[in-house]
């Protein structure tokens, strides 16, 4: 009787993995990263309250090209509402006033 609702966008596999993944226990679990990927610098993580959660820049930068999933299906709308309508435009020149 009513107009057919628009099918809501489905989360991607990557978005779902991000939600369901558990935290690594960095002090008790040993992780073998695939070849070519470095572990966090162990010198930063000598015990303590941070529980191995110190990460050097080199380790963190490895994710930049690997994980590009948007946080949620409505992310672009949220960014637009929060940061403004020209958020997605890349090369718009700014008028200096």
């Amino acid at each position, binding site marked *: 009787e009513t107009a057919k609702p628009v099918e809501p966008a489905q989360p991607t596999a990557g978005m779902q993995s991000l939600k369901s993944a558990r*935290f*690594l226990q960095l002090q008790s679990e040993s992780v073998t990263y695939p070849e070519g990927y470095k572990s966090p610098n162990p010198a930063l993580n000598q015990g303590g309250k941070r529980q191995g959660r110190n990460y050097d820049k080199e380790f963190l930068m490895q994710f930049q090209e690997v994980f590009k999933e948007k946080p949620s299906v409505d992310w672009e709308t949220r960014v637009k509402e929060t940061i403004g309508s020209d958020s997605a435009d890349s090369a718009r020149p700014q008028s*200096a006033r």
Partner: protein
Amino acid sequence: EMNGEPEKMPNEQIVTVFDDPEHFNVKHPLANNWTLWFTKPPSGKGDNWNELLKEVISFDSVEDFWGIYNNITSTSQLALKSDYHLFKTGVRPEWEDPQNKHGGKWAYQFKEKKAVDIDHAWLDVMLGAIGETLEDEDDGEVMGVVVNVRKGFYRIGLWTRTVGKPIPGGGEGSHAGGKGRSTEEGKAILMKIGKNFKKTLQLKDSEQVEFSGHTDSAHAGSTRAKAKFVA
């Protein structure tokens, strides 16, 4: 139901995002939860600060950070008078916040806007914050980092809980703001953080970062308050 926290199985195989960016089952926890905030440029119609300062999103893992960073407007594309703030969750990026009001900030102004890769500099500072390489474990000073986009400059700041002195209600201990941390120790910790900040920004020795207390800035009515320390 995808939201459940799966029990760790004895023989579970660990799959990181590097193994499979679509089907991973572990992520890298951060030592703190962080919230990204954005200040919209004023419209010129008398809008108040509270309407301009917006919470964007909170996160607690390395993977979440990159999902956000890779899908948000870069600093170099923001309009003039915009700011990004990355603060520990629960701390508003304002000096009036109870956790900030006895603190201060290290800051550096890039006066030659065309000469700096501000996106790179801001990313490096955010990585220093979330990776906890700006301070040592027990320093307890770092509250957040901020980038300001202005007509004549970019500025990056690192906010600290104290100005190196005990704070009201800070207790007896040797943590930041406690009476057990002497003024000399407090200053030494802030200086070390300032040097880390400068190194993270990859500044030259001749380029100085400056520290000032928030209330000094507020009383001076501008950011021209006298710097207390330089590094």
